[in-house]
């Protein structure tokens, strides 16, 4: 079905079910219980899961398949956001043209950058993309925001103002992005007993787009083109001596992943009609690298897992403070309690990046395949334990 084999279809189905039912799954704790702080089912956060998931899926098409490590992908996300906001400013708050333009502009931009950067490989490529991204950041932050030619609105960020043309904006329309009249910020809250679940229009738009994006990435992974990309990673010499030109292949992969980034950027602007230069900074590019590696490079589900994992714990860790820690460790004797809190303190709240950095190093050193490899190892371990149990069980009667 859908041109996929059974395993891939199952994977797609799991992802689809998880994203569509996320408002339930991510809110397992009653709204006013102490554990409610671990809930992640509110629209803003769920949108972030999905958007960064799309970003990472796209990045993985380049890095996971070809092994070209780009440190400048945030530039495409930023460009997508700017393109969307411009559509809001010029046409109307409808998200469809905005997201389409975001994808197209990011695609064109990545053709430009990819054409130049892909003339080199390895570390040179990484540094070139890094340089391009920083240049785009500087362009957006200052060069393109001068009074004569203001494309990005510099430090303030690009946003929609009352005197913008918005030629298709209806008389009694609200000033917020919408999908043919369905506003992205409209949320239906369902209360079941002590639980409360939020169903947000914006989230569901993102979710559907992500399922499509994920489906497309499976198709790409299983296509001849996907195989060629893996071949490039494996052996470029053999590739060119087999009559295949590596450059258009890598460029195509680069542009596709750039368009994914643009799509993510467009969605970001659709959820909150604002675009700022900081989205393009190289630390933002680094973040998507972290997500992909943490989840599992070159695997289908890895990037989505990585994005969800990082965004979830970022949220949780920033919420925890010393008071909460003292509550948790209240069962310990006072001195030890203070000591434990003192030890954990640097890693929580604003220290989230420290935790992330350490986690990331641990993953690169000990678990290069990321969470997916970790899962597989645990799976194997359980299986082998199960087997040894079986074998003892089956041999015992024989004895």
């Amino acid at each position, binding site marked *: 079905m859908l*041109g*996929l*084999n059974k395993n891939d279809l199952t994977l797609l189905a799991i992802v689809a079910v998880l994203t569509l039912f996320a408002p339930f799954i991510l809110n397992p704790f009653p709204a006013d219980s102490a554990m409610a702080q671990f809930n992640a089912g509110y629209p803003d956060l769920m949108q972030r899961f999905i958007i960064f998931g799309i970003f990472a899926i796209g990045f993985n098409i380049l890095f996971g398949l070809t092994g070209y490590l780009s440190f400048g992908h945030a530039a495409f996300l930023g460009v997508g956001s700017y393109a969307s906001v411009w559509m809001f400013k010029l046409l109307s708050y409808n998200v469809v043209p905005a997201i389409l333009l975001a994808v197209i502009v990011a695609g064109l931009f990545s053709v430009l950058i990819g054409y130049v950067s892909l003339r080199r490989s390895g570390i040179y490529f990484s540094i070139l993309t890094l340089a391009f991204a920083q240049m785009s950041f500087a362009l957006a932050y200052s060069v393109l925001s001068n009074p004569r030619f203001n494309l990005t609105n510099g430090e303030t960020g690009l946003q929609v103002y009352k005197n913008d043309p918005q030629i298709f904006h209806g008389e009694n329309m609200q000033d917020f992005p919408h999908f043919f009249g369905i506003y992205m910020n409209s949320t239906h809250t369902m209360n079941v007993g002590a639980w409360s679940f939020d169903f947000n229009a914006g989230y569901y738009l993102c979710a559907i787009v992500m399922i499509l994006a994920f489906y*497309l990435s499976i*198709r*790409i992974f*299983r*296509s*001849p*083109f*996907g*195989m*060629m990309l*893996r*071949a490039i*990673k*494996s*052996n470029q*010499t*053999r*590739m*060119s*001596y*087999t*009559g*295949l*030109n*590596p450059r*258009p*292949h890598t460029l*195509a992969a680069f542009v*596709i992943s750039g368009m994914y980034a643009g799509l993510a950027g467009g969605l970001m602007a659709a959820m909150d009609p604002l675009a700022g230069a900081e989205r393009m900074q190289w630390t933002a590019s680094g973040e998507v690298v972290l997500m992909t590696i943490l989840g599992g490079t070159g695997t289908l589900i890895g990037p989505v897992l990585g994005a969800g994992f990082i965004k979830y714990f970022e949220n949780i860790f920033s919420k925890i403070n010393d008071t909460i820690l003292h509550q948790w460790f209240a069962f310990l004797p006072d001195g030890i309690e203070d000591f434990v809190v003192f030890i954990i303190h640097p890693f929580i709240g604003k220290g989230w990046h420290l935790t992330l950095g350490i986690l990331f190093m641990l993953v690169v050193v000990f678990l290069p395949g990321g969470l997916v490899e970790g899962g597989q190892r645990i799976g194997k371990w359980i299986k082998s334990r199960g087997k040894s149990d079986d074998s003892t069980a089956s041999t015992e009667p024989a004895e």
Partner: protein
Amino acid sequence: MGILEVKDVNKRFGGLQALGDVNLSVAENSVHAIIGPNGAGKSTLLNCLVGKLIPDTGSVMFDGQSVLGRSPHEINQMGISRVFQTPEIFGDLSVMENMMIPCFASRDGSFRLHAVENMMNEKDIVEKAEAMLEDMNMIDKRHMHANSMSRGDKRRMEIGMCLAQEPRLLLLDEPTAGMARADTNNTIDLLKQISDERDITIAIIEHDMHVVFSLAQRITVLAQGTPLVEDTPENIKGHPKVREAYLGETQVA
């Protein structure tokens, strides 16, 4: 007029004359060996043929067309395939995938963006790759990770990958270097079979005289970047110039 014509090729690396006035003509559907002591310029010559190096002067014509200034993939698409000294394969891919890639390359050319088709649904490619694996006697290894095979198997697969493209000229760079005797003999048999059964020209660079004399119909001897003699194996064996060039480095059997 041979299928491959090399005329007056010169190549210098700094002060070193690697190739000096090399002339070579490889007849269609023959097996032509290029031999010579270490540093004779065999590998440099080969690299000039496949586009890795560009000669300073001279011309290299394949089937009436110049190959100079073309990149390796363009030259391959003209019909020249190359087997490397250490097998160059797609180590991270499965054996089947390794074999499918050249099939795609010969069907679709150097680039085609078929990004959403399922590769296993390309019946003609799958059949062709399976047939080639059958020919190479490794169909049972199709799901194996290419890197986990023995060196002999890798070599055989590499030759198979080249053949899958139906090249008109197959270049081999010391295909038996570092192999055990048994593997060497297997490779010789495989190459013999290929040249008998297929419409193909083989040019082989080799150190091992056993291999050369079992396969070649014509032999060119290179020494210090220039061809000394070109003749049939029988005439090469006793040739005084050849003895002089090797001077006991390898016994001429």
